[in-house]
């Protein structure tokens, strides 16, 4: 089997400045230059390499992928997955190292890229196809297939701005699905759309893999990783820490890797600059005795707390917790100002350090592994910070209802319901 993707010693450095101030204005540069002419000159002459204002999103990554393999890529937020995908799809270039790709790379996160709202469905199919690298003849020959797959036949000559979002997505996906690339990149984390659509994406990925094409699959959904991939690489802070058969890699990721301490700290370099003035400090899980734990008993209440700083006063801030299973099923979403009284009371939060804390009642979760995400936003104004997979923990159901039957109990929740048995004559 031949190698389709070969990545050799790839590193990618970002200037934090680029993230901080999305672009520098000329006047800033001029003021800069006037205030410190020599320094500016030197900086223009030879960009600093070891400076403190740069971060390495990827560091010395090497791997290769044989033809036809489905390779999983897992890692926390900020581990460099997206950067790696961007380099593989040639959107950005590595700072160091090289890569060799054999064949066309298409990424399913590009679904609908370049769609123009004013153009009709028909026109957009051709435009989008060309953007994704299809030849016009190729698009023309697959046109009917694409249209019937998208189920928008009637509206094919209507501008897509009149489409429902579902139709839009179906059409966009139909084009991408008919590309037949040699290398397919799927970033499920960024995949938009409803569960149905995501399922379609995964289905397509399976098809592609069965045709012997190469697939790179990025996901937080461990069961999908296990189901669809043979091998998985784990990225941690820009480094490749493990490449192993998927079951082994998932094990490592879920247990030894991290998130087993019951506490998650955010280092400064893990927080995107766009989060300011919000600064996450830590997310903790405490049992009923206020001890930080990574495993809780389903029969006892537990506490989730988020510690954070605000550098300036923030209006309308809400801290949300997302509880998910490791199969990416949502269990609940809850915000610290869900309660109308709390919402009134905390309209404005002054600058300072805070802890938002909630108590989860006993007898709620079934046994298993869960993942806790956190989000800080002002509704419809801005999202400051989000980490969908900040902390993992186990739930042990000893003493839960029905434990005298030693069997697997289906369901995400395992509530203690009030039962009565009425005997009818």
């Amino acid at each position, binding site marked *: 089997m031949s190698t389709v993707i070969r990545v050799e010693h790839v590193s990618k450095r970002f200037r934090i400045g680029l993230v901080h101030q*999305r672009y520098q204005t000329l006047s800033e540069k001029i003021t800069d230059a006037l205030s410190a002419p020599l320094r500016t000159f030197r900086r223009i002459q030879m960009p600093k390499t070891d400076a403190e204002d740069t971060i390495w999103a990827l560091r010395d990554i090497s791997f290769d992928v044989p033809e036809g393999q489905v390779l999983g890529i897992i890692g926390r937020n900020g581990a460099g997955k997206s950067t790696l995908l961007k*380099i593989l799809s040639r959107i950005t270039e590595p700072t160091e190292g090289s890569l060799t790709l054999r064949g066309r790379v298409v990424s399913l996160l590009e679904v609908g890229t370049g769609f123009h709202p*004013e153009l009709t469905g028909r026109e957009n199919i051709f435009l989008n196809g060309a*953007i994704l690298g299809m030849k016009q003849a190729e698009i023309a020959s697959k046109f009917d297939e694409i249209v019937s797959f998208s189920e928008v036949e009637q509206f094919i000559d209507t501008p897509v701005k009149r489409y429902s979002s579902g139709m839009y997505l179906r059409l966009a996906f139909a084009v991408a699905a008919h590309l037949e690339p040699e290398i397919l990149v799927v970033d499920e984390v960024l995949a938009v759309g409803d569960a149905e659509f995501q399922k379609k994406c995964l289905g397509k990925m399976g098809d592609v893999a069965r045709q012997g094409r190469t697939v790179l699959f990025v996901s937080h959904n461990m069961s999908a990783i296990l189901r669809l991939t043979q091998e998985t690489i784990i990225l941690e802070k820009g480094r490749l820490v493990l490449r192993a058969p998927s079951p082994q890699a998932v094990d490592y990721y879920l247990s030894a890797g991290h998130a087993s301490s019951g506490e998650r700290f955010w280092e400064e370099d893990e927080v995107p600059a766009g989060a300011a003035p919000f600064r996450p400090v830590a997310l903790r899980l405490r049992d009923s005795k206020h001890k930080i734990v990574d495993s809780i008993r389903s029969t006892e209440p537990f506490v989730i707390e988020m510690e954070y700083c605000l550098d300036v006063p923030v209006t309308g801030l809400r801290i949300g917790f997302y509880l998910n299973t490791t199969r990416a099923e949502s269990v609940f979403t809850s915000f610290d100002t869900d309660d109308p009284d709390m919402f009134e009371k905390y309209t404005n939060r002054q600058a300072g350090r805070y802890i938002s804390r909630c108590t989860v009642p006993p007898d709620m979760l079934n046994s298993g592994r869960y993942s806790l995400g956190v989000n800080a936003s002002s509704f419809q104004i801005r999202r400051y910070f989000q980490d969908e997979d900040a902390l993992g923990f186990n739930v042990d159901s000893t003493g839960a209802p029905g434990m005298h039957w030693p069997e697997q109990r289906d369901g995400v929740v395992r509530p203690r319901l009030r039962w009565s048995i009425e005997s009818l004559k």
Partner: protein
Amino acid sequence: MVQAKPEIKNMARENNSKMDLDVITIRSMHGWSSLNLRDLWKYRELLYFLVWRDIKVRYKQAVLGIAWAILLPVVNIVIFTFVFGILLKQNQGGINYPLLSAVGLLPWGLFAGALQRCSSSLVGNTNLITKVYFPRLIIPVASVLSGLVDFGISSLVVFSLVLYYRVPLSWNMLWLLPLTLLVVMTSLAVGLWLSALNVQYRDVQHIVPFLVTTWMYASPVAYSASLVTGRILRIVYGLNPMAGVIQGFRWAIMGGDPPGELFVVSIIMVLVLLVSGLFYFRRMERTFADMI
């Protein structure tokens, strides 16, 4: 690492058997890189579609639609004739001012429009640049080329005037084709610089309207280039590539003195700007997705 060697050989053999597959090697690069125009050629269909999209979208949901492409030059010619021709009395000495301004406005419209679209083209296509690979050069090139349809329609207006004023048709008019190419090259040359600079410095989008206005007065759009006299002054004037081009248009349509040294200086300027613009663009291209 021990396996690396046989793997490479293996790859090479595979490549021979599957010639249709492109092997792409990406290396981290610093400094200047080659223009790689071959890649541009490979993506020519995308170029075609982007030009087509620009044209298609421009007049969508406009009541007058493509009629705007006729209306605007006509309104411009009327205003110029009134202000410069009648109020400022440029009309004297047997000068056919309406035609003079119409012929000046024709290449100028192509240039000014291309400059405006081109300078904002990369930033306006952020969603493409951050999500898909293709030679970035296609975007500014497409934005310049999409002006050619408007140009074609405007030239109909000019030729109606030519017929109306009974200007004799001559073989010189064939020079309009290479001259138009020169306008496209000039637009692209300046547009490449502006579009790439705009990615890093958004100041560019504030400068462009000002630049376009100033540039217009520095070019013989509203007046005849013969007003600029003196050999040195004319050479300096020729540093503005549009000066030579517009004079070329006037000569091709209205006759008179062929553009001499002015034109040579203009062409050299265009080539210098274009080649340097291409290299600058290629150099900056690598960081577009990170900076935009």
